């Protein structure tokens, strides 16, 4: 390999340097029909799962075909997306916040050809490249984090759990039969880069063993005061230890105070906590973000732990299926999963979904816990 210079001169890093220019202006990339009608759209309709029609006050129409995609995608796959955009959409394409890809066209003939083309493309391994769906009362794509493929703190994998889950709910991605949208999110540790705390169904990686302490290296790798301060339950204190006749500065951990958040490990690499038996998945349900009808709500933990069953996490997908089917069968039109559970009562939710309620599910973390305990004689038998 020969080094190919971009033009950057490491001897003079400031020479011709361009910085602080921010993103490209969005108007560089708007399809003409979008640019023309921006701020002047009249209404929209979902023509079929994955196909939207927006009509402008000008009378202009744009059809959007929404397709699922993995969040982790290669430049080869992106180039295929771009070649489709070039062929049908004047070179324009859009991503949604849920990792879906949207192709926009302005006439029905192109729409028909585009749909047929997208639906027919498959990876060598057999999965669809561009499944159409994810609109209306469906399960759209999953927002998620990195997991084992690129992160230092995960308790599970992200791309793998997402692939397993989306295979399980593929029918619901390509149809609109649910009482309301069901938003699934996945985060591979409590840091929740994927912000799963407000999703209808959340898949969350959790640790269950306190950090190990790499005494021999800790003082070289970590700022001990930062490691101490990082613990939300004050379980970490500075201490000294003798190894091979040398006194080393290190920390001690009060293990019964650990809630396995991993914040200390983020601050100090000498406190690793990942562990095959300790790590796995919790399932949370009933969160939402939209202000529609009911207010935004947090997800609640309904399954405290499922082991990491690679490569397809069958216990996890079975539980998600059970919750989903119970919701689809029992909820009213427009009722989000959490609204349904609140209406029937969470005691009934556990019964209908055949989930065990355990002490792990009773909140005991600081003041907000109190507001989740029952303070009325109204409950169901």
């Amino acid at each position, binding site marked *: 390999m020969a080094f190919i210079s971009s033009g950057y001169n490491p001897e003079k890093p400031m020479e011709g340097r361009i910085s602080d220019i*921010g993103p*490209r202006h969005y108007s560089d990339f708007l399809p003409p029909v979008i640019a023309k009608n*921006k701020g002047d759209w009249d209404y929209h309709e*979902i023509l079929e799962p994955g196909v939207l029609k927006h009509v402008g006050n000008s009378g202009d129409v744009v059809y959007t075909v929404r397709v699922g995609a993995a969040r*982790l995608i290669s430049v080869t796959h992106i180039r295929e997306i771009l070649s489709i955009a070039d062929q049908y959409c004047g070179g324009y394409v859009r991503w949604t916040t849920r990792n879906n890809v949207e192709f926009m066209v302005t006439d029905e003939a192109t729409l028909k050809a585009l749909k047929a083309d997208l639906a027919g493309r498959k990876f060598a391994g057999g999965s*669809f490249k561009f499944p159409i769906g994810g609109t209306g009362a469906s399960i759209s794509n999953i927002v*998620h984090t990195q997991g084992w493929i690129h992160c230092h703190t995960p308790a599970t*994998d992200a791309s793998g759990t997402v692939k397993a889950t989306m295979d399980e709910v593929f029918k619901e991605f390509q149809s609109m039969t649910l009482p309301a949208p069901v938003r699934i999110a996945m985060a591979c540790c409590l840091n929740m880069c994927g912000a799963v705390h407000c999703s209808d169904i959340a898949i969350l990686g959790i640790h269950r063993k306190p950090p190990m302490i790499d005494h021999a290296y800790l003082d070289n790798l970590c700022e001990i005061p930062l490691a101490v301060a990082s613990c939300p339950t004050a379980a970490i204190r500075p201490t000294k230890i003798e190894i091979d006749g040398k006194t080393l500065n290190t920390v001690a951990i009060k293990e019964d105070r650990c809630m396995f958040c991993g914040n200390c490990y983020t601050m100090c690499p000498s406190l690793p906590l990942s562990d095959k038996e300790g790590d796995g998945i919790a399932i949370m349900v009933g969160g939402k973000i*939209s202000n529609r009808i009911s207010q935004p709500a947090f997800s609640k933990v309904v399954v405290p732990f499922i082991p990491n069953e690679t490569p397809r996490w069958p216990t996890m997908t079975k539980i998600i299926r059970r919750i989903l089917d119970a919701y689809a069968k029992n909820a009213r039109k427009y009722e989000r999963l959490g609204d349904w559970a609140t209406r029937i009562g969470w005691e009934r939710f556990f019964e209908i979904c055949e989930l065990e309620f355990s002490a792990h599910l009773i909140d005991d973390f600081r003041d907000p816990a109190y507001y989740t305990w029952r303070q009325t004689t109204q409950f169901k038998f």
Partner: protein
Amino acid sequence: MAQHKTPLLDQLESGPWPSFVSDIKQEAANRADKAAKGEIDFQIAVDCPEDLLGVLELSFTDGETHWKHGGIVGVFGYGGGVIGRYCDQPQAFPGVAHFHTVRVAQPAGMFYKSDFLGSICDIWELRGSGLTNMHGSTGDIVLLGTTTPQLEEIFYELTHNLNVDLGGSGSNLRTPAACMGESRCQYACYDTQELCYNLTQEYQDELHRPAFPYKFKFKFDGCPNGCVASIARSDFSVIGTWRDEIRVDQKAVAAYVGGEYPSNAGAHAGGNWGKFDIKAEIVDLCPSQCVRYENGKLEINDKECVRCMHCINTMPRALRIGNDRGATILCGAKAPILDGPQMGSLLVPFIKVGADNDFREVKDVIEGIWDWWMEAGKNRERLGETMKRLGMATLIKAAGVEVDARQVQEPRHNPYIFWKAEEVEGGWERDINEYRKRHQR
């Protein structure tokens, strides 16, 4: 071609959903092919996608990650935008031993043209792994895996050839994100893309150079439907709203009742929900009970409306957002680390959002909050946690906004009011000897 056996990952190639394993394998094959033909002089290991699959297979086998903490890597003059990443099994997987992430600022609303994105692909194929996230959770284009010597080269090509910058990371302003807004949505109450772009440009210094106690996120939703989840995910959440009347087209209401238009814009078309029932589906579900339907006429008591969007979502051809538009600002949302999850708390009930004065009103609120948080916030304390520790009223004062009953769900449950001396007649300075003249010891 596969260097590593991946029997577990191979099982993720079946099933209908797009397989990331198949895609990585496809990238690996293309790189090997181009290298063999001499088409591209790859600047990092040609086989890094194979090594990435190898290290992932190891994690699928032993149930633990094999990535170490980030080191301090980046581009000159920036304190964010690159996340250092090293494999803890470099001998077994040399292609990904050093495998840093580059965050590239995405255009607001995430529309792209093929020449631009194609050029990003070209840079990333030559100088990186060829693997990306479209997009990261905060919204950036995430380029997944390169080596330290390539970072300045990538930055140079992005800025010089594509006129695009890196995104944020660390204790910086993170890359702001917006819903598609007015570009393709009739519900947008302000131009989310323009506000997002304008603020991103205004605060480039805060985005690239860490000066905050912790990360700070801006997100911009055009309406209360909240498609970018700003109310749950951003320290500073701007959500479009209006304060006049929902515009009603009675003829179109009749068309929904008559079944000529699909209710809920067709979103429920696949279910057996029966004929659209305007009383059950609109009137009875209105959270503030401000809708009536009598004698074929829909009436909305707009003064009582809380703008939840349900009736508008359900009959988009009959009901439209009001004309006196602006936004609500909420602060302090975050995921659970550390002090538990927080939803955005309402700071400004209504603010006009216009490009005509360069969004000055919004910027004044932001800068008031930052001045306070940078002074009062502890290391690694999100704005929401500082708010919890020091109180909502402190934030309101710092932001320089009016106190308003809309800022609370209900008044306080305890009488522990932190009165200030200047609020009490005569102040707090008193003479104990004067007091003792009235009250014996």
